[in-house]
């Protein structure tokens, strides 16, 4: 049974000349974005205390147990996140994409809400919910079961708690990729299996799952990398629990007196792990290429759940309740409460927090404006770069286009917090004096989000059979016409998705941001983090709710825009 269609290397064809200058331009831009910070990182890691060439940072890295331990903890945490995200997301994606589950649109919307939520905000919400003593869940359970005052049912200040919270905000990556893959698998493959006598389960196991396995792995890999390089949620949950992960440890190395060289050196094991993970993914997937949008495909098969719809709904409700509904309910309650420790009754309800954030806190307006300006420009620039790169790489449009792919993927290995330092080192000195302006943040966001955008668009590009484009060429269309009339419409959904990914990514970003903002370039994420350090939960909740309302609106509008949002059904 030919489940997988082997694609021959792209056939050579006559190329117009303008591809070369565009490719050269891309190489230069990507090289500046990626290589310059890495260069300064390497230089800094090899610089001793007195500015001389030295390996002392690397020696410290391998001999200092306070550096080794956070690294081990970070790796196990990320592995946990990868597994949990996959376990949460895959059944959910299958239910949404392949069954007649009621309210599927709502489920997708709520998963998007979870994706839009910055993990640090989620972590704060979960503190409100599941702190061992004051957590609302624990208080409720104590009330329900008559437990002792200090008995805790859940404790968020633990490794398990941290893994759970991060997974709540990384599982949408797996969900989106798996759901998209399921959407794309043509029914004929599964029907063929059914016709040949395989039962539902066998078809699922032998046809559907193998086809979405790449998406599952790719999604989990993103989740792992996100967790490994995440700063906000660990800073909020791991530090109170009394342990460091590698990112919080690196951050603490910037505290007075700063040890930049050691911080730069400590980033290198992260780089190594990332490279190993990417290798592993390729090894697992083998050299097969999956082409699932071909010229002739049917609608995906929808399974009738029947009596199973109730347990299925329960499962979906449980997951979304934990990841979206409860955290936002907690934030809303906190935003409206006078005293957090008091019951949520009328006398305890106040709009003071809203008043404080919107009218008294002088930084709010500027920060909202900065956040939006950066979100829009980073998303647009990043999507354009990723799209061009993905096109060149997947269609091998120019010789050596592979380098482009490598450059676009490389930043994935740089933790945001390290990139923050690297960018500071690169753009805090002549000839590029960008520190203290929004430009350095823009460069940072584009660099950080490029791998994600590129991965998505290159996956989408690979999913489109080159035969469709070649058919256009054979019928006499120029390369540009083919691009405009065949490739672009097929990619429309992916492009919008990538744009939204990047936009949300910039709103979620905290690790590089925290080192790069100054008085006039403050972002909402940084204000939230500052407020958290001083424990102003009410104000945080208000800001979080405002931020979410805005970003959700942006994502909705992007998907509805008549020009962009038309559902690109494969024709």
């Amino acid at each position, binding site marked *: 049974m030919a489940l997988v269609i082997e694609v021959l290397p792209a056939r050579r064809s006559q190329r117009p000349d303008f591809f070369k200058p565009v490719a050269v331009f891309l190489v230069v831009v990507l090289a500046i974005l990626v290589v310059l910070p890495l260069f300064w990182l390497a230089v800094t890691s090899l610089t001793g205390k007195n500015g001389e060439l030295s390996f002392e940072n690397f020696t410290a890295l391998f001999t200092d147990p306070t550096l080794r331990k956070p690294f081990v903890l970070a790796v196990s945490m990320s592995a946990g996140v990868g597994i949990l995200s996959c376990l949460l997301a895959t059944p959910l994606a299958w239910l949404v994409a392949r069954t007649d589950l009621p309210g599927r649109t709502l489920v997708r919307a709520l998963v998007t809400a979870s994706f839009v939520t910055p993990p640090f905000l989620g972590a704060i919400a979960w503190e409100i919910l599941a702190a061992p003593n004051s957590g609302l869940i624990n208080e409720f359970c104590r009330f329900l079961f008559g437990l002792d005052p200090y008995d805790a049912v859940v404790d968020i200040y633990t490794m398990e708690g941290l893994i759970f919270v991060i997974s709540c905000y990384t599982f949408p990556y797996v969900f989106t990729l798996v759901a998209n893959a399921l959407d794309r698998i043509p029914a004929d493959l599964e029907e063929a299996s059914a016709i040949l006598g395989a039962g539902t389960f066998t078809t699922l196991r032998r046809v559907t799952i193998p086809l979405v396995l790449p998406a599952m792995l790719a999604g989990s890999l993103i989740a792992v990398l996100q967790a490994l390089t995440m700063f906000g949620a660990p800073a909020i949950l791991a530090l109170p629990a009394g342990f460091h992960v590698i990112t919080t440890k690196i951050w603490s190395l910037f505290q007075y007196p700063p040890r930049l060289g050691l911080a730069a050196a400590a980033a290198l094991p992260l780089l190594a792990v990332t490279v190993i993970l990417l290798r592993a993914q390729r090894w697992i997937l083998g050299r097969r290429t999956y082409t699932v949008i071909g010229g002739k495909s049917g609608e995906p098969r929808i399974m009738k759940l029947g009596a199973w719809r109730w347990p299925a709904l329960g499962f979906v409700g449980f997951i979304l309740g934990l990841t979206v509904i409860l955290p936002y309910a907690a934030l809303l309650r906190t935003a409206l409460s006078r005293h957090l420790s008091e019951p949520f009754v009328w006398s305890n309800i106040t709009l003071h927090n809203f008043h404080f954030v919107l009218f008294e806190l002088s930084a709010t307006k500027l920060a909202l404006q900065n956040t939006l300006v950066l979100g829009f420009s980073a998303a647009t620039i990043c999507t354009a770069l990723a799209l061009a790169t993905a096109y060149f790489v997947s269609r091998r449009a120019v010789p050596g286009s592979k380098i482009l792919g490598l450059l676009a993927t490389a930043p994935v290995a740089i933790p945001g917090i390290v990139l923050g330092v690297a960018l500071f080192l690169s753009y805090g000195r002549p000839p590029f004096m960008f520190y*203290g302006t929004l430009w350095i943040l823009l460069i940072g966001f584009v660099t950080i989000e490029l791998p994600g955008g590129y991965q998505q668009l290159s996956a989408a590009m690979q999913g489109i059979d080159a035969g469709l484009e070649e058919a256009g060429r054979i019928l006499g269309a120029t390369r540009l016409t083919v691009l405009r009339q065949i490739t672009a419409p097929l990619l429309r959904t992916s492009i919008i998705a990538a744009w939204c990914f990047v936009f949300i990514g910039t709103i979620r970003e905290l690790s590089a941001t925290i080192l790069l903002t100054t008085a006039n370039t403050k972002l909402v994420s940084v204000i939230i983090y500052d407020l958290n350090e001083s424990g102003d939960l009410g104000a945080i909740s208000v800001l979080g709710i405002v931020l979410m309302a805005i970003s959700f609106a942006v994502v909705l509008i992007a998907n509805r825009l008549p020009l962009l949002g038309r559902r690109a059904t494969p024709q």
Partner: protein
Amino acid sequence: MSHLSRREIIGHGSVVGATLLLGGGAGVAQTAAPPVATPELVEAARREGTVVFYTSTDVQVAEALASAFQTKYPGVKVQVERSGAERVFQRISQEYGSNIHAADVIETSDAVNFLLFKRQGWLAAGLPGDVVKLWPAHARDPDGQFAVFRAHLSVMGYNTKLVKKDDAPKSLVDLLQPKWRGRIVKAHPGYSGTIMTATYAIAQALGWDYFEKLGKQRVLQVQSSTEPPKKLAQGERPIMADGNEYNIFSLMEAGEPVAPIYASEGTPLVPGNAAIFKEAPHKNAALLFYDFIFSLPAQQLICDVGGLRSFHPEVKEKSTRTPLKDIKLLLADPVAIEKEAESIKQKYEADFGT
């Protein structure tokens, strides 16, 4: 204060208390001419329009101070940049390292930072008239580059709903009792200048041994010294090992169930300096604001709203608060802290995990 040796400071301990309360100790006028809020200065400040205030004071207090200033001088906006003392320091260092001069006035609870700023030559000389006239000599830089804008205590505390007054710990050493295991919240010396000062002072008084034992008590580790009182109010932990007295005050006044504990071994006093940058982008607005924050109304405001302790002799303390003279104080010399900071951070991480 920075130029006194540790012994001298300890010797001044009782004087500090008395000064704060009675307002004695008029200083010797030896600094540059004090800036005065002349109509010309106000007009010049208004033309600049903004003053950028980097501060580590609690955000609600800082914003209240800003709006009081804006009410008094309409047309001059205060841009409050609030962060933990070490983050403020980190940012200033990064910015000045990159030749960015965004800040006008700086105020943090880490006295060590001001030694560094002064050494780098970043600060402008010149103290407001009130400070020169009224502040005790140890509460201002002899060269007039900074002065104590506020002082506060790092206190212990408890949640009055969860712990009865008689059961609450009375001393730092009481925290080591097994019954408080998993019940304590504590801020971090690597993040908070207040806690670095307090940690140094307590280690001097009790030995590091105390922290080694406290580290085994499974404390909830938060970062800023403003956070433990808030965790206390939420009921997340019933006891706090250290944190700002002023946050405890403001929470008490908002009806939250918290109360301070003044440990029998002593309570660390943390001076918070303020200064103007030489390269301040809004020089006139900076002078006006600097003059304002040391004036009686502002000092009374930070005392009333913020629960901070002031060196202004005419500031009236609320009757509900324990007068400073009744509190045994632990003092720390910033010069010594500067030398010890790195080793304190390392020992702390070894014993507390972060």
